[in-house]
């Protein structure tokens, strides 16, 4: 599973639209499932499943009607259409709602139907463009479980997301895009190892002279950008051993520390290191580590 990370406007959706043959590249080459997206577009389309950002479903049709339409468009034999549709509807847990119009579905149900439609023809490569954006935590975990299952079954999944934890938990490799260019690529572990050191996040009791506080901590580590008042973030050279000297230096300079936290490198750190900014939406990441419920 390949995770594709980037802030809004970085070019994620444009890249995906080119890879799924909805947009003709103006230059360069790309191959999906062994075929060129520009010159062999129809061969690419036979081998890919696509669930684009915002589950685009017809609200007037029922779930089973939509899935049967998708099956027909993918050339599945008429006698198999209904059986394949029912199998997928059951797989994504929509059996009870299959006869209802999609307009009555919740966001999570729409996403699951979207996923089922993308899987109708047993695709070799599945493109999921921000599949969990806007979903509640339960629906997100349910979708994660299904995506994991697909990966375990051998489907290649290309996942774009703004949720770092989603990328961290699900993907085998990650590419980070900024301003239309790949700025980093590797496994989550190798990317985090590149960033290396842990960092210390501090909250000062009084942020009125933050510039002076920054000068003090800069002598003990690498200053990192922080976005909120009273907050300081320092990359530590020696890990936890650097904490005491920093606190002493701040105390000597008259700064009172209200909170502190030692953090190991995360994908947000990788993102920060590679792009110079935090990923939008990173703060909204799911906090639970619980194993997702089975579909």
């Amino acid at each position, binding site marked *: 599973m390949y995770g594709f990370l980037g802030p809004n406007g970085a070019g994620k959706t444009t890249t995906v*639209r080119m890879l*799924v*043959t*909805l*947009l*003709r590249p103006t230059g360069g080459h790309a191959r999906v499932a062994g075929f060129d997206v520009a010159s062999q577009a*129809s061969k690419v*389309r*036979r081998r*890919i499943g*696509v669930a*684009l950002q*915002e589950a*685009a*479903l*017809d609200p*007037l*049709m029922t779930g089973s*009607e939509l899935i*049967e*339409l*998708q099956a*027909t*468009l*993918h*050339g599945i034999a*008429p006698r198999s259409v209904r059986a394949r549709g029912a199998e997928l509807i059951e797989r994504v847990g929509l059996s009870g709602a299959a006869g209802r*119009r999609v307009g009555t579905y919740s966001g999570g149900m729409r996403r699951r139907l979207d996923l089922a*439609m993308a899987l109708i023809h047993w695709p070799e490569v599945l493109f999921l463009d921000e599949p969990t954006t806007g979903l509640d935590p339960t629906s997100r975990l349910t979708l994660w479980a299904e995506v994991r299952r697909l990966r375990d079954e051998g489907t290649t999944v290309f996942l774009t997301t703004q949720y770092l934890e989603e990328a961290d938990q699900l993907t085998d490799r990650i590419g980070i895009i900024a301003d239309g260019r790949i700025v980093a690529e590797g496994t989550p572990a190798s990317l985090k190892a590149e960033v290396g050191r842990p960092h210390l996040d501090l909250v000062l009791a009084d942020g009125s002279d933050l510039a002076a506080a920054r000068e003090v901590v800069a002598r003990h580590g690498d200053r990192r950008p922080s976005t909120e008042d009273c907050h300081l973030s320092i990359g530590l050279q020696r890990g936890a051993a650097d904490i005491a000297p920093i606190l002493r230096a701040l105390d000597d300079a008259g700064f009172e520390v209200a909170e502190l936290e030692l953090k190991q490198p995360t994908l947000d750190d990788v993102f920060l290191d590679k792009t110079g900014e935090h990923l939008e939406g990173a703060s909204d990441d799911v906090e639970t580590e619980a194993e997702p419920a089975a579909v």
Partner: protein
Amino acid sequence: MRPAVVALARRALVNAFRKPQFLAPLVVFPSLFLAINVGGLGATRSLEGFPQVDGFLDYQLSAAILQSLLLGGVSAGIAVALDIEGGFFDRLAASPTPRVALVLGRVLAASVIAAVQVVYFLILGLAFGATIQGGVLGVLCVLLVGVVAGTGFGALGVLIALRARSASTVQGIFPLVFVVLFISSAFFPLELLSSPADVIARYNPLSFIADAIRQPIAFSNSLWPVLEGLLAATVLTGASIGLSLLALRGRLRDA
């Protein structure tokens, strides 16, 4: 490709029948217009240049059918534009179905709806005293011309939607439909139109289609006007489908 075209047409029809806002205007407005025209403008029959007909309703029925078919084209265009706006069109375009099927499916649905529209107005006309001079063969001619014209208007609506990519823009074409219809022989014979409207109407394809539908209803089964109308509708259909495919290719290049 055929199963895909049929499946897409079925989906378009299901949508149209599940959302009365799509279908109702196609028959309600032209029916009201027909009632107003027949009720208020019947005296025009006595004007010099107005052809000899059994009833003014016989003459105006063609205009109502044509008006309804044009609105059907606008409605098909709005439906495609809504699919584009909502992203559903991308889902269809990302499937391995040949992209011509995306256009043909919608156009086929427009043909079926056109048949329903023609039958509705013929029944309405007969119920209120119109006579079909051409008999059963005349009804078949009207149905044929009406379905081909409805198909062409549907394809034109799809073309506009693919170019405009916005339902509100397609809806904005609605008043234009009336302008083009009025500068044709749909409501009144060319002889009663003033210059330059009569010149424009003489070459307006809608005039040929209106006359082809009117001929079997109000006059007789004369072959030439029907063929002229059929030719105009066929050229419109072919050109609109061809241009729609070009627009679709452009849309996928520029999206």
